[in-house]
């Protein structure tokens, strides 16, 4: 066992996968000489050479598009959007080029591409370094979308994404990079894509979340357990496309009350889809409305009082749990 940070787990996964498979290579802005803006790719150029660790110009469409071209020829590119905010510049390549690729080739082509996207707020990043753009992609068939919330998952999901035969958008939360540490087993392990994980058992209320809000959700769940005697079950989605419908419906049926929490803004967020799934398939098991805690429907503003108002936090989650429990 070895204590590792979230960012180190990503870095280790890249090292191990590049060592395991010579077709894995890394490409993006400042990933080689600098080792990435967040040091996620640190040491890769030294270990694998500049042919497999490629610094690119500021060209997000090219970065993803070239990844697609290499992937259809059997390579396994891991391309980096320096900030998830910039993924909009590559939107067409991801959504129209990569996601439709197998479909429009009649199943006779594959695109084993990973797009890493450092996302999330809470680091004073303001409008263009705080975004959570996952919901732009979670309604695009042909893609897979993952958002690890733990150090273990950061490593295991990245390895699964690299070994997958499909385009995977991997949202890594910037705030978690150095703020969480875990004991990781050494060596190779993977986390399956499409499988959610119960982080805390409970029978009074279900809290469904992912990514950056898992931590505050668990904090809130522990507080109400201690102070109110409420048993909150916390389900970490881990994969956002495809959603683990069975796990979502199972916890909803178990507790009858569901709160969905995410850092992405409310309208059009994944919470809406989760709520719809539950009302469609578990309506008769519900004992209250499915509620959501999410960022306000605005942009993530810079000044601390504005940012705090906009983003979900432990207190807002706590309040929502208590209100729903009392329903």
């Amino acid at each position, binding site marked *: 066992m070895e204590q590792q940070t979230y960012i180190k787990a990503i870095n280790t996964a890249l090292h191990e996968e590049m060592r395991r498979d010579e077709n894995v*290579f890394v490409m993006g802005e400042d990933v080689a000489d600098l080792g990435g803006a967040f040091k996620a790719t640190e040491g890769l150029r030294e270990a694998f050479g500049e042919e497999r660790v490629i610094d690119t110009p500021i060209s997000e469409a*090219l970065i993803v598009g070239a990844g697609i071209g290499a992937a259809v020829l059997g390579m396994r590119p891991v391309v980096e959007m320096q900030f998830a905010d910039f993924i909009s510049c590559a939107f067409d390549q991801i959504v*129209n080029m990569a996601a439709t690729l*197998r479909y429009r080739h009649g199943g006779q082509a*594959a695109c084993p591409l990973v797009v890493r996207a450092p996302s999330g707020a809470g680091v004073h990043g303001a409008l263009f370094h705080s975004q959570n753009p996952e919901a732009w992609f979670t309604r695009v068939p042909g893609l897979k979308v993952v958002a690890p919330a733990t150090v273990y998952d950061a490593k295991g999901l990245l390895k699964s994404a690299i070994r*997958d035969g499909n385009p995977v958008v991997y949202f890594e939360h910037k705030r978690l990079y150095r703020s969480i540490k875990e004991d990781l087993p050494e060596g190779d392990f993977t986390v399956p894509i499409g499988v959610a994980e119960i982080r805390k058992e409970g029978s009074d209320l279900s809290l469904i979340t992912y990514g950056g809000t898992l931590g505050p959700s668990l904090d809130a769940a522990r507080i109400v357990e201690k102070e109110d005697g409420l048993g909150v079950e916390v389900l970490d989605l881990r994969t956002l496309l495809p959603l683990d419908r069975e796990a979502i419906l199972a916890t909803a049926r178990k507790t009858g009350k569901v709160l969905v929490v995410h850092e992405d803004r409310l309208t059009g967020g994944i919470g809406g889809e989760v709520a719809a799934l539950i009302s469609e398939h578990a309506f008769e098991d519900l004992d209250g409305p499915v509620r959501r805690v999410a960022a306000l429907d605005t942009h993530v503003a810079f000044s601390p009082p504005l940012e705090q108002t906009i983003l979900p936090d432990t207190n807002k989650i706590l309040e929502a749990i208590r209100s729903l429990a009392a329903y």
Partner: protein
Amino acid sequence: MPETIGARGEPDPSPRIEYELQLYYWMKLIRAFEDRVSRLHRQNKILGGVYSGAGQEAIVTGICAPLKDGDFVAPLHRDMGVFIMRGVAPGRLMAQLMGKETGLSRGKDSFLHGGDMEHFVFGSTSMLGSSLPVAVGAALKFKMKRDPNIAVAFFGEGASSRGDVHEAMNFAGVHKLPVLFVCENNRYAYSTPLEKQMAIEDVADRAAAYGFKGHVCSGNDLLAVLEVTERVVDKVRAGEGPALIECKTYRYRGHSEHDAALYRDKEELLEWESRDPIPRFEFYLEKKGHDIKRIRDQIDQKTHQVVQEAVDYAEQSPLPEPKEALEDLYAPPGASVTSNLNSSSNNGAR
């Protein structure tokens, strides 16, 4: 008619003359196919958008003829000929157009958005120019793996206005990748004429800004396209970096078959039709002493037969089952991602 006509071949060891007759056959076959497609569209046997490349046959023929097996080609929506030149069976193409199960995309997409990776033909999207970064990625793979192949990306002067085209060419220049960019400048982006698209005359001029050479040739002159391609492809393959060939041409039909193209001057169309690549090449063959009337009759008969067989194949092919709407979205776990890519024998039926 020489035996090689209608079969795959390269100039050597066949004598040059047989090669030239074969090129003529390919242009004629592509034109016959295009004309038949336009007709089938009017007969409602082909639905959706149909984008004719009639008048631009010399470009796809001249660019593709010198290519080798395993070269990656990303055609445009108007480049039916690329599929034929690369060995995709005409029947599968026609089935694609009719939305049949046996088409390239098994009924998933219309017209040319299907690709055929068995022949290294990459299916485009409607976002023109988006294939250029992809072709650059293919070239990157060839360079990384020391493959002797090149990537070829077709685009129109219309797509040249898109940022993807700039990003692709810039990166290809920086890394000296084995990629050939082919601009089919047919003077119109749907209805928008050249002078409203760019402030310069030649797209090829832009190559200099990316650190490689741009070449301009008449896209309606097969020999001109072939001459520049043979010269340039050898250099790209030898690792000298990317190149851009701009072929000046003209779109005979509307943007699609729905478009009567009334925004164009009739005189302009007539003038370009007088430069049609097929009679132009016939004139050349005749000057070389061929009995062009005899050859044309033979080839018309042959192309008619090939196209008719393609239509028959497509018409007899089944439509996809409704449940297939949800198939081919994801590669299943453990599926080889290169199942069709390692075979050296990709000689499809011509």
